Each structure stands twice: as C-alpha cells, then as structure tokens.
C-alpha cells in the first residue's frame, strides 16, 4: 500500500483533525503525534480510550499457521482449507470498518456461517426494544444544541464514552432560548471527570439501586400522568420522583440517555423498554427523546451493514444460503459452543477470546495480540483509522465518518484478507 505522505519526515509528524474510530462518539478533532517509524501519541485530549488505542502500534509481525510464521498467501490458503471443511462455521468478533464488514458478511454468506459482533450484547438490549415497540430517539448534535434537561439513566456512560459530556453536553444549547441546561443522574453517580466537564451546569444526583433503573423509569412515567400519586422507586423518595417528573413535563427538549452495556441486571432489555416508554409518555406533554449509547469497535456500523446487506441485523445464520435472524440462538458466545470453525475479526483491539478445545480458530487481529491458545491461523491486520482509511458509524447510528490512514506498517486491511480467503475457497464465490 503506497504512503500518501512525504517520504522525508520531520519528527515528530503531527496529524491534526484525526477521526477516532474507537468508542462511537465520532470525535474528529484529535491531534496525534507520530514518532517515526510508527509510534503514535494523542496530544489533544486525555480521553483514555483514544490515548490507549492510538498508542498501540507494535511493528507488523508475520502471519502464523499452527504457531509457525508463514507468508500471508500461505496463511490465507490454510484458512481457506479449514473453512472449506467446516460444517458449522462462525464469523464473529467483527470489530472492523464498513469494508471489513462487507467482506466478512460476504464470506459468511459463502460459508453459510453465523455472524455476530463481539460487543452486541449491549446493542441487543436496545435492538430488542426497537424491534418490539419502536422508540423516539435523537442524535448527538440534537443533544448538544437543543436539550435543556439531560436525564442519565444508570451508570455514567462516560466510563465507556469518555468525551460525551465535554463535547455534547458542556456547550450551551444553541437552538434554545434562553440557552439553559441541567443534568440529572438517575440510579448512577457521575464520575469525577464528568463533574469537572459539567462544572457550571446544574447537576442533580438521585442515587438509587442500579439494578432497579426500570422501576425508577416506570415510577417517573406514572408521576408524569399524575404528580400527586408519585411513588418511590429504586430507593429514590417519592418527592424526588415527583419533582423529576414535573421537571420532565416542563422541559422543552429532554433527553434520556443510557449505555445499555453498562446495565448488569438480568433481562436488561426490559430496563431499556421502561426507559423507552418513559420517553414516549413524556411526549404527551413535551418533547423528549432517548439516546441509547453503544458503539465501541464499530458495532453500530457493522450492524447497519448487516441489516442492509441481509435485511436483518446481526445474530443471523446464513446456513442454507438464506438469512435467518435469531438474537438468542445466534449470539456468538452461545453459538461458539457448537461451531466447529471460528473466524474471529478484531481490528480495533488486541483481544481474542478463548474458544473450546476442538474448535479451529482463524484470528484476524492486530500485531501483538495475546491469545489464550495459539489459533490455527493468525493473520495480523491493520487497525482502521490508523493503518488504512475506514468508514465507521457513530453511536447514534446516523453519522458515518471517514477515518484516514496515519501510518503504514505494511499490515493488510481485513477486507483484503477476507476477500483473499473467499477467493481461495474451492469454488469461486459469486461476484456480487
């Protein structure tokens, strides 16, 4: 792959306005310094996700087959041989950009595999509700410019999306008169960094049982209809519930935000459903919208591609040459128990889970990935937005961003590798 940068480099090289592809907030204002040949350091923000992920740039290593270093072509052939013999393949992980997802889904179609993303648990707590009841939702720029009351349900989402408050809540809403904003934390405490980011903005904390967020949402919905009959819930006093319900009624544009992957009670989709109903009920009185946060490792983008390619979202089987969607049966962690071959794609983080003995694993992951057990085939690949240009989706599902290449370690992108594997399968894949 040719470099698009000057060959005579001044040290360090400064990359400005870098798009961060990692957590789904779509921050595109990073300054990243490159100390040639390939060390990256984020200088413009303390965001721990960006700092940690951009700084992981070990040199390229060769692919391995059964632990032995081989040329890429040989690893591709070995992967194809494994997959040609597979009876119940799983193509999962899917931490990749849009092109990588396209290639992975095409390969899965060819193999009749099950497809899922490593982080789809949190996504599915939201999608399950979307599929059952629908919802009223909003996007990050609406939050920033119109929201006068932000209700954060459950654990502080900044643990997963560190710059949420700095970029999308701290600036005063531009399209409300007069511009005003307050933030309420319901059944969750703001992190110290969040308190700092929100300094100057009224913040109310209603600490309650984080396992009973849904109860608190239901109590709020009931109090919206009749404030005089407010009940306490999740350890929050009736008076506090009544006051918050009244505040929701009077808000001009309220946003209820949550990060479902941070919920740890069983059946967390029911918690999401209660929040979605609260939002819908609030719209009988005013405007209110939900903001379901998810999106590490482009899980939102991969789900979008799967939905448009097959008409159904992730957790789909392509066995028999047709899509069959079942979020229970085809969750990767469950299906992994019966799969005989696994293609695991993880381009955003150097992690591959441990699989049962007897499963043949083909891992596409960054150089330096530590694995519990040596996979049958390991192919080091580039990271989107570091080693190659990439499309990734923001958490709110609307905005797709183009992240650019920063360095060239000679690592192939996932799409190229997966297409090569598909081409090496015994029968040529369809051209579409």
């Amino acid at each position, binding site marked *: 792959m040719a470099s698009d940068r000057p060959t005579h480099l001044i040290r360090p090289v400064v990359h400005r*306005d870098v*798009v961060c592809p990692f957590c789904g907030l*779509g921050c*595109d*204002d990073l300054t990243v310094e490159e100390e040639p040949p390939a060390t990256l350091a984020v200088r413009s923000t303390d965001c721990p996700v960006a700092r940690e992920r951009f700084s992981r740039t070990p040199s390229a290593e060769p692919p391995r087959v059964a632990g032995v270093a081989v040329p890429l072509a040989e690893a591709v052939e070995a992967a194809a041989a494994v997959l040609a013999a597979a009876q119940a393949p799983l193509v999962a992980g899917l931490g990749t950009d849009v092109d990588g997802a*396209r290639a992975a889904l095409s390969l899965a*179609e060819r193999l009749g595999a099950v497809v899922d993303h490593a982080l789809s648990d949190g996504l599915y707590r939201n*999608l399950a509700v*979307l*599929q059952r*009841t*629908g*919802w*009223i*939702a*909003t*996007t*990050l*720029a*609406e939050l*920033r*410019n*119109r929201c006068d009351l932000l209700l954060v349900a459950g654990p502080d989402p900044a643990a997963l999306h560190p710059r949420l408050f700095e*970029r*999308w809540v701290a*600036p005063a809403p*531009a*399209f*409300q008169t007069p511009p005003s904003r307050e933030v309420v934390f319901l059944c969750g405490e703001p992190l110290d960094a969040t308190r700092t980011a929100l300094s100057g903005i009224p913040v109310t904390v209603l600490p309650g049982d984080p396992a009973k967020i849904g109860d608190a949402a239901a109590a709020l919905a009931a109090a919206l209809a009749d404030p005089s009959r407010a009940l306490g819930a999740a350890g929050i006093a009736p008076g506090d519930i009544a006051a918050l319900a009244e505040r929701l009624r009077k808000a*001009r*544009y309220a946003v209820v935000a949550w990060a479902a992957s941070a919920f740890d009670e069983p059946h967390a989709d029911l918690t999401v459903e209660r929040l979605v109903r609260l939002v819908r009920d609030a719209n009988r009185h*005013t*405007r209110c*919208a939900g903001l379901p946060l998810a999106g590490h490792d482009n899980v939102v983008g991969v789900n*979008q*591609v799967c*939905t*448009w*390619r*097959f*008409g*159904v*979202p992730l957790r789909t089987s*392509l066995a028999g*040459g*047709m*899509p*069959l*969607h079942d979020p229970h049966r085809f969750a990767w962690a469950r299906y992994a128990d019966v799969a005989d071959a696994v293609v695991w794609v993880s381009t955003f983080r150097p992690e591959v889970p441990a699989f049962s003995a007897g499963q043949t694993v083909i891992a596409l992951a960054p150089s330096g990935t530590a694995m519990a057990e040596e996979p049958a085939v390991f192919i080091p690949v580039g990271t989107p937005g570091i080693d190659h240009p990439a*499309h990734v*989706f923001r958490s709110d*599902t*609307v*905005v*797709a*961003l*183009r992240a650019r290449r920063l360095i060239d370690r000679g690592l192939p992108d996932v799409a190229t590798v997966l297409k090569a594997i598909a081409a090496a399968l015994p029968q040529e894949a*369809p*051209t*579409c």
Partner: protein
Amino acid sequence: MLTKLAGGRLYDPANGRDGAVGDLFVRDGRIVADPGPGAAPDEVHDLSGRVVMAGAIDIHSHIAGGKVNIARLLMAEEHRAAAITTEEPCGCGVGLATPSTHATGCRYAQMGYTAAFEPAMLPSNARHAHLEMADIPLIDTGGYLVLGNDDLLLELLASGAGEEAVADYVGFMLNATRSLAVKAVNPGGINAFKYNQRRLDVDEAGPFHAITPRRILTALAGAVQRLGIPHPLHLHGFNLGVPGNVEATLDSIAAVDGLRLHLTHVQFHAYGVEGDRKFSSAAARVAEAVNRQPNISVDVGQIMFGQTVTASADTMAQMNNAGLAHPKKWVMMDIECDAGCGVVPFRYRDKAFVNALQWAIGLELFLLIEDPWRIFLTTDHPNGAPFTSYPELIRLLMDRDHRLTRMAELHPALPEHTILGSLTREYSLGEIATMTRAAPARILGLTDRGHLGPGAVADITVYTDRPDRRAMFEKPDLVFKDGRLIVRDGVVVAFLQGRTHVVEPAYDPTIESWMARRFDERMGQRLTHFRIAEEEIRGGNGLVRHACQPGSF
C-alpha cells in the same frame, strides 16, 4: 464487441419513436449508430415483434439510508417470512416492503429498471446512504438532499441572507454530500416539531428561527434555479395525509411564482374535506393546476393494498399517524439539527373507505394530468406500496376494464366519491415509456439515459407484448445494463455494479468559512470530515456527473 438488437418495436419517446420497427447497435456499453452493412456484430438478438424500451428509471423510491434500515428492523416478521435463498449467481436477502440491498437491486432489474433514486438523503446521513446504495447491485442510484429544516439554513435565512448566499449554501451542500437534487420535506415543519409544535401553517413563523415555510420554500426553489440544477426543487409538501391539504398544495404552486417545482407523492397532498366523512378527492383541482402550469411536475405516490411501512423525514406528519401503526410499533428520530425520520408500519385495506379513496385519488391524478412528461409513476416506495407493485399499477393505467373490475371490489361507498369510473383514458405503451424512461431522465438531467439514441448508455429492456400488461411488465424477456445482459426471462444472469449520479453546481466558496465555524460550534464535526470524498463513492469508481446550467431555467 458489437451487439445487434434486431427488429424490435422501439418505444423511444425522446427520439420520437412510438413502436417503429428498427435495429439497435451496442458497443462498449453504449448505443451506437448503425455501423452499416459491412459491420459484423459479435452477437445478435432477434427481437422481432418484441417491445423495446430504455431501462426504466424510478424517480422516487426510498431504497437506502438510516430510515430504511430502521424500517427493516421494525418489519422483522415480514423479513422472517420472506427469505430469498442464494442461487448462483444471485446472493441472498430478505424483505418485501423494505428489501435488503441485494433484493432491491435484483427486483428492480427483474422488472426492467436500471436506475432508482433515493429521494430523502439527510445531510448527516448522506455518507451512510451512499455506502448502502453502493451495495445495491445492478442499478444506478443517487440521492436528493433534504434541506429546509436544517438549523443552519434557517439561521442563514433568519440573518437576512440574500438569494446568493442561500444558493452558495445549497451549492456547497450538494457538492459535499454528492447529491443529485434538492428535496424539501414539510419545510419548517420538522424543525418546529423539535419545539413540540405538531402543526405549522404555510405563513406561520416557525419557532426559534422565526422563518415561515413559504420563505423556506421560495428560497430553496430560487436557489435550485440560480444554481442551474436540472431537477426542480423536489417538494414533499405540507400537511401530508390531512384532509383539506389541497389548499396548501395549490398554495405551494402559487408560492414559487412560476419557478419550476416538483410535487412528490402528490396523492397524499390532494385531499378535500367535502362529504359526510369530511374526506374527499381533490385530484381534479390538483390536475387542473398542473395541466395549466408547465413549470409544475408531479409524481403520484400511488397506494396499493396490503402491508407496507411508511418511512419519511416528516416527523411532524408521522407522529400524527403513529396511532395508525400496523403492527403497533413505530420509530421517530430527531436528527442532527438537519431533519428527522419517522417510520410507521401500515396496512392499506381495500375495504377501508379512506384507503380505497386514496387509491382512487392516485389513479384520478394519473388519468387527469394530461402530459406524461410531467407525471411520474411512483408508489413512494415503500410508503404507498412496495415498488414491486408497479406492474399491477401499469395495468390499472393501461386497462380500463381491469380498473373498473378492481374498483368494484373495494369499499361500497367508493363510487359516489370518485370520478374514476367515468375516466376512459388508457395509457399507451408510448406514454408508459415516457413516464417511466424518457421523462425521468429528462427531469433529472440524465442526458444519456432514458432513451435509445446513439450515445445513450445501453440500458435496454425487451418485453413480449402481452394483453395482460401486468404480466408483460412484471417479467421482461431481456434486460441490458451498460450493454451487458443482466436478466433473461425474469432471472438474473449476471452481476455488475451501478453508478452514482450527482450534480456539482458552482458556488462561491467563501460560504465555507461560515459553514466551518458553524460546524465546529454546533455540529461537533469538522466540515472537512462532513464532505464526502470522490474515493468514498463506490471506491472512487462510479460517479456520473451531470451538468448544471445556471440561468437556463
């Protein structure tokens, strides 16, 4: 390679051919002049007695973008029931009302369509829409950019910006998002909904920016003219689906004061309030206005009966319809200070009076508007019905007996509320070719599409002339895209990728510094990242640029 399509009956309105027998020659993906007796074609198709038209073009079909994916998720039951199995060389997919990208491309091609245009591409969602359209095989695509509720435009208008600045803004946005045309959806209404207004009159100042819908409409129509964009402003009008909305429709025509304007899915905007049910057809009034004013064009948005899903940027209208959802689930989204989306599943029932009258209003419009160059065949897929119902719709237009038979099966009160039974017009093959080929190409500015003259791209459809027009248009004998045979007897036989049609109007780039500031301050996105690079469209290989002619309209 030279291909000869010999002896077909050519319906090619752009070149004045209405069933004349003739040969076509194709070389390197384009139609070429008859190379003379010395030339030896590499391939000859004998088309004696067959009907030959250019590939059909759908001017308004929601085929890609965020709202379509939401609709797919909501229609889970349908998608479970309608799976398509991989068959060489064709891949798999699912869905009827919101088919997967693969199914979308295949079904269009199987009906003889070679292009379809997404009419509601939100600026913030444009990159997604393009990524998705690139995965629709076989057909060309493109998007119309939704403006008119975006806070930046409203802010610009509120600042008293003149026509020039508005045109610069529109010009920048079209270039940045790789769009083909400008769409306005309930101008001002979607924005007002974000301030909890559930209705906004044409001359009522909207909240916050205090701009009237009329001002937005005229500003955008003027900008389109000033930039010389071939397609007129594509307007999803006011009060969609509301009885009495014909007044706002006629008012919109008056508001643009002679500027060109395209009224989309006008069936949903042609309702009166007469009769016991306070719901009546105003098709005759709309048709009369269109017939009188050559600056106006329409597409119909015909409804057909059955289950579908409505997907629209018009959250104000969709929120009002949400109570009618079938099944009972729906999604509303406020989007990025530029628009919104509302997705509401819907089942049109032939025994329901309102639905039956909507069906009749659509057909009345088709039959009363005289000029087939200014009325387009659409169902507003999937809002009125899936695009796969086009062959049946064509039969309704071409076959009065069939129309009357169908009408007799509908709600018994229908005949006294529609003049449909008295309308004797039957569309000819030439008129169908105009409405579905030549006219869409002309109104979009696609000069080398929609016709069969030398220089045209060899997108060609060949039919057997059957009395049952539905059967005829459902399953063409042959479909060529870029000169390659892609469908034979209704079966996809080869795959290729379509192209993306865009305009790139000239504008004064000094607007960009204002835009860049606003993006930094408001949108949390750098303007440079908002702009979609050429290399992002179909991997840098697939843009087709169409000329703009400032001042020519």
